[in-house]
């Protein structure tokens, strides 16, 4: 009986390892390789930690299985009488602390590159692509008019969309993230980006997309009953396509079908923004 329990306790960790080994092949893994440069570095870190952790997992469980197995077939009247070992304590305090410190320090610069504003790519900071405002339960996106830069307050010639963020591909872009009501979180799994949108704060985040593609954008901070359906997309497209997308948006929003009026209203908007 005792032996079968030992096998029971060996079975589960083994199963866990097997499942993890097979998981990528079965689609139980990342939705795809990271599509951003920082994302790729995050994935590398993940795999590095995965290797370290797997070694520790196997090591501790082999140890556990071994001592259990020995204990199950222990025949002497008395167990080993020992209160511990000073040397072992020293070893298994210093070795793990070295490893943990290594992990902690090794990843610092990924974090710094992602969040510390002085480390943001300057070209992204100079011209934020859009302001993204989360609200129950949608994402509102405000672009500056073609050729202008994004202002903190809305301008009359700003372009608006809902649940559809377009960015130019292949270079770092920055967005200003805010919330209109409660907390939300801007989560693009494929780009490995996540940042809470906090009412009262405007939080700049930067990322890039290494290929032209469409990614899911969802909310990762509980914001009410409709939290699960804040479904949106991020479209990464070439500079040319992005420009024509904005131009098209501009035409849609300021062109009411009557050619002369259209030019008038957009001119009016422009003069209004200039006079401010």
């Amino acid at each position: 009986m005792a032996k079968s329990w030992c096998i029971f306790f060996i079975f589960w960790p083994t199963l866990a390892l097997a499942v993890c080994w097979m998981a990528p092949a079965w689609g139980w893994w990342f939705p795809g390789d990271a599509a951003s440069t920082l994302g790729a570095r995050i994935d590398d870190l993940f795999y590095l930690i995965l290797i370290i952790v797997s070694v520790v997992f196997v090591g501790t469980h082999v140890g556990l299985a071994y001592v259990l197995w020995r204990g199950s077939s222990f025949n002497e009247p008395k167990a080993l009488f020992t209160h511990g070992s000073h040397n072992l304590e020293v070893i298994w305090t210093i070795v793990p602390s070295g490893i943990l410190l290594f992990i902690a320090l090794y990843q610092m610069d990924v974090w710094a590159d992602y969040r510390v504003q002085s480390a943001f790519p300057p070209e992204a900071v100079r011209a934020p692509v859009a302001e993204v405002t989360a609200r129950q339960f949608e994402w509102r996106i405000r672009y500056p008019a073609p050729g202008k830069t994004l202002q903190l307050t809305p301008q009359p010639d700003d372009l608006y969309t809902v649940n559809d963020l377009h960015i130019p591909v292949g270079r770092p872009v920055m967005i200003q993230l805010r919330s209109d009501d409660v907390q939300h979180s801007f989560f693009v799994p494929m780009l490995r980006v996540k940042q809470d949108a906090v009412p009262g704060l405007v939080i700049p985040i930067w990322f890039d997309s290494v290929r032209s593609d469409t990614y899911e954008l969802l909310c990762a901070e509980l914001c009410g009953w409709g939290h699960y359906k804040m479904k949106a997309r991020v479209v990464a497209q070439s500079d040319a396509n992005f420009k024509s997308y904005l131009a098209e948006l501009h035409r849609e929003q300021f062109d009411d079908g009557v050619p002369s009026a259209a030019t008038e209203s957009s001119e009016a908007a422009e003069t209004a923004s200039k006079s401010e």
Partner: protein
Amino acid sequence: MSVAHPALADHSHEAHGHHDPGFVRKYIFSTDHKVIGIQFLATPLLMLMVGGALALGVRWQLAFPWQAMPILGSGLFAAEGGQISPETYTMLFTMHASVMIFLVIIPVLAGAFGNFLIPLMIGADDMAFPTLNMLSYWFMWPAIFFFGASFATAGGPNAGPAAGWTSYPVLSAIPDAAPGSGPAQTLWLFGLTFVGVSSMMGSVNYMTTIINMRAPGMTLFRMPMTIWGMFITAILQAFALPVLTAAGFMQLFDRVRLFGMGIHTCFFVPAGLIVNNADPTVGGGHPLLWQHQFWFYSHSAVSIMLLPVMGMVSDMLTTMCRKPLFGYKPMVYSLAAIAGLGFIVWGHHMFTSGMNPALGMTFMISTMMIALPSAVKVFNWIGTIWGGKVQFNTVMLNCVAFISMFIVGGLSGIFMAAVPVDIYFHDTYFIVAHFHYVLFGATLFGVFGGIQYWFPKMFGRMMSETLGKIHFFLSFAGFNCTFFPMHLLGIAGMPRRYADPYLHPYLEHLLPMNQFMTISAIVMGFAQFLLLINFFGSIFWGKKASRNPWNANGLEWVAPSPPPHGNFESVPVVHRGPYEYSSPLVDDRDYLMQTDVLPLKGAEA
């Protein structure tokens, strides 16, 4: 084999001459720590079933979204035709977590085992403040009442509480922010406050008792690990709880209108916010303030939910391996380190919150460092089993499960402690996997073991080994099948708290896996009835237990089973630490109780 012992010389149960206090004072409003401990055990066990039922509701929705739930559905969600609406879904996981954390895990550790074991293990006749102790139990009931009332508002025009157990403002602070942020949230905050009051009364009592009332000879470094766990937990609670209580009141003031006027304190709400067409908010508070306060307590609560059981497992493990604890002092220091570091790691719950990124770095280092004492403990437990004469009974099985599951939970913590990786994992199912491995996998299995181990002391009878093993088998298998795949869901990027993840195409293929997990969860849920049957059945029909059924060393095994009012027949005198198993000083048996005087008198028959 019976051991003659000075403390046992007097077998008269009336030795203390306590007068009979009558039924109500004896069993209901009792000031006896043992009765209170048992009350504190029975209540969370029942709450465990409630919390479990709520969890099955959550799991049902994830496996069979928008389909009527059988059995439970017709009762709970009758208004929606047995189907779970998104509002109900948010309420279900909010209540599930609140019940499990505040009404099960916290009270079952400090409340049940703390109460029952502290006086017995240190050789005291009761707690330092017996009446306060009684109040600490009875203050659980307003908490249960308010949580229940909060839940019950779901039947009315408003929904039940729906801001999650973390209750982040602004969602929770503005009544118009969500259907569940109305009266339900206020009631929920009352519930939280009463849990806090109850814990605080317990905490003061435990500290005082452990400092002042130890039996002669019970020096600090002769205390069993359980007592160390309880002691450090009590200190933690005393320092961490006031912060949560204050935060709770602040949120309450943010919500209520004072004196009939629209004055909200706005501690957590920035100015000029218009939520759902409500009046714009005034006054500039900050939502992150709540997160700092909440996690300052709630990360410490993580230790509160773990340290006692770490102690208990150390005690059970030595008994079942017939071996001294490997590295007693390192074990004590690592407990203290987990508690101490636990005060400076709360920010790891807020890496993506928008706080100063430099804080993210410091919190990452402290969080990495807290994994170190955890690792030291694991190595020492394995060292304790090494070379032992292992008894594979229910107690031992649960202890091994504790160690194994704690390893998994600790290791998944490393991924999340790494800030860049946590950017991806935060608020996904990876987090859910992590804390279920530590809270259910470690703590609850430790508690299952603890119940089996100390049951004979509580009721004078043994629990059934067969039932215990079946329960363990089903729980362990069910647990791993339910929760291990959650790591993979997290890696696949499935966010937590989603009523319908499959709305997002990249998650669609995870449905079959979720169905498998739900079925495992149902099996595991039903297995808990075996625990209840075993527990309540054994009270009446269990095999009679002797004083020391496990041949253990601690003081609690010197007292009769169950101990009378006043516990010990005479004050026990302690001569050594609690872990002298297989000592070469005695040759006819493999244990040496803390009270034994050497040489043992006349080779007993």
